[in-house]
């Protein structure tokens, strides 16, 4: 058994309010540390129920052009794992309730050192991890130590995860299940709503955990449609695309960078709250 985390508490609260979670993704340090901290600080008030914070990586194999670009912007601005953890620590000084899930690829964690990373992430106030390229077959490597450290390890289920495989994917998952709505990369084709509903139902038949849906969700009405039957929706590429669009001619942040992101999150949140 794992201890209840901020993620568990947040889903319990949303259940009472009878609304789906808005899960927002941004890359830590995009387009620069200062702007990224402002975005992070503004997300809860704008309507983000759970924050996924991307750990930038030079080779994000499962991501589309928008998130690749956001990751590279952050790295170019000098971002690294230590700075990502420091961002979470400063966020936690002001916000004790909004869950933060670090999302990314295994190598930067492995090089930081798995045990040291888990301890530092927990101490900084991280609640959960999504590590795209560590499958359940390698659970003893990172997933089980993360659970021991008091962090949720959130697993992706995909359209290729058939019924035979689903139990293995769900086995050590905690916090929530992230259903990847398409076979493809982030920010690609829009998912087919009916297919998503059927798949979410299939997964919920095998786990009591909340199921959130992501990949290819970019507008309020679409988020609303996708969220029916699910416990939440993840929006990532559409948000980082707003960052990209707002940048000045030298790639620098402008006043629209923070306000643009928060306006989109506001719109998404309002759509999900509407009847």
């Amino acid at each position, binding site marked *: 058994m794992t201890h209840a985390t901020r993620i568990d508490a947040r889903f319990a609260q949303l259940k009472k309010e009878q609304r789906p979670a808005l899960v927002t993704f941004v890359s830590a340090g995009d387009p620069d540390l200062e702007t990224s901290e402002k975005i992070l600080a503004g997300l809860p008030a704008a309507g983000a129920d759970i924050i996924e914070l991307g750990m930038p990586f030079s080779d994000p194999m499962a991501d589309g052009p928008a998130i690749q670009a956001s990751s590279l912007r952050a790295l170019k601005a000098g971002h690294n794992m230590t700075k990502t953890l420091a961002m979470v620590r400063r966020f936690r000084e002001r916000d004790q309730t909004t869950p933060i899930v670090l999302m990314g690829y295994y190598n930067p964690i492995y*090089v930081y050192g798995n045990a040291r990373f888990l301890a530092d992430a927990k101490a900084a106030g991280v609640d959960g991890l999504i590590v795209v390229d560590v*499958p359940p077959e390698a659970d003893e490597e990172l997933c089980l130590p993360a659970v021991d450290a008091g962090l949720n390890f959130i697993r*992706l289920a995909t359209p*290729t995860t058939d019924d035979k495989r689903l139990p293995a994917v769900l086995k050590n998952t905690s916090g929530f299940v992230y259903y990847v709505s398409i076979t*493809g990369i982030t920010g690609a084709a829009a998912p087919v709503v009916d297919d998503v509903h059927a798949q979410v139902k299939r997964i919920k038949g095998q786990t009591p955990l909340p199921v959130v849906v992501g990949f290819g969700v970019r507008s309020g009405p679409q988020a609303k449609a996708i969220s029916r039957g699910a416990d939440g929706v993840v929006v990532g590429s559409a948000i980082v695309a707003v960052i990209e669009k707002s940048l000045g001619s030298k790639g620098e942040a402008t006043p629209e960078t923070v306000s643009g992101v928060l306006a989109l999150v506001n719109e998404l949140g309002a759509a999900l709250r509407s009847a």
Partner: protein
Amino acid sequence: MSTTTQKSGEAKLNSYRSGPDDRGFFGLFGGRFVAETLMPLILDLERAYTAAKADPTFQAEIDHLNLHYAGRPSPLYYADRMTKELGGAKIYFKRDELNHTGSHKINNCLGQILLAMRMGKTRIIAETGAGQHGVAVATVCAKYGLPCEIYMGAVDIERQAPNVARMKLLGAKLNSVTSGAGTLKDAMNEALRDWVTNVKDTYYLIGTAAGPHPYPAMVRDFQSIIGKEAREQMLAAEGRLPDTVVACIGGGSNAIGLFHPFLDDAGVAIYGVEAGGHGLDVENGHAASMTGGTPGVLHGNRTYLLQNSDGQILEGHSISAGLDYPGVGPEHAWLKNNGRVTYVAITDREALEALQFCTRMEGIIPALEPSHALAQVMKLAPTLPKDNLLVMNLCGRGDKDLFTVAKALGMKI
């Protein structure tokens, strides 16, 4: 090899040829570090490959193609002038540059295309660096009438024009990759993105002995024909096994193909030669993952990588487009750690000198990749006795590199 006195002690391995384990690990290295969307496909592939291996008709098909299509066995050639000039070991070239398509890459492509068809896949994708693998993939796809898309870095497309033309002529669709630095690792990222999007009908034909399990073991198996032939040919020519074998390493498929059949012959010294670029002391100026990198996880496996202290992958550099990959096959990483194989690095300059030396001494223009192995032979051979039998894998021909070499030497074409 005598086994009477050797106990299966704790530290001593019984065999260097039994890996990987059932989860795809060679000790610490290898494994299956891929996104969930790909995981069921990787497991499918493993099942299909295991079934094919157990089916004698699969191997018979490969044997037939090797003989009649690829032109195997490739000769084991005694390089007599080079031997005399260097004044030491007796140097043999394993002539894999004489294969159809001009390199060892065809060995792997023939095996994998047969497997893809067994699996009912109807679309083939691949990554390529120097274009040798891309050409081999485009070739087998043309032969079997399968649509083929090749991912190649924009920088590599520019420096490997002859291979680009060959792939197009063979009917492949070439996708120029501009993300990252536009070289081999970025091409591999794009190929993985394609695969994750087109999971139902697409087969990803990886060109080197790296990536998630079962690729490293499977590519090694298909390339092991090099070492098996070299072994028989040396026994026929000299009546005994070689004393020294040498091969160049980017991802390491030609090298593991030559090395693997010799790993349990304790008397055979084995050298793997990485691309030292501008020198190992130049930051991000080389592509020597093992002699100048650290362990990490990329493209589905744990192995030695060129990376910074934050785990961000570096681009690396080599004059040879086929060697500047920031990783290396996991079996090599394991063979480095257990000490069975000695890994060294050769610089751009040394490789260029070796290319010219071989061309003038033997009338063979090697590719820049095996020119790295040649440069190591030039260092090593003079230190060895005259009865030391040395085999070097001449894994590719130099036609594709003429523009690069001419530019580096200040020649006008």
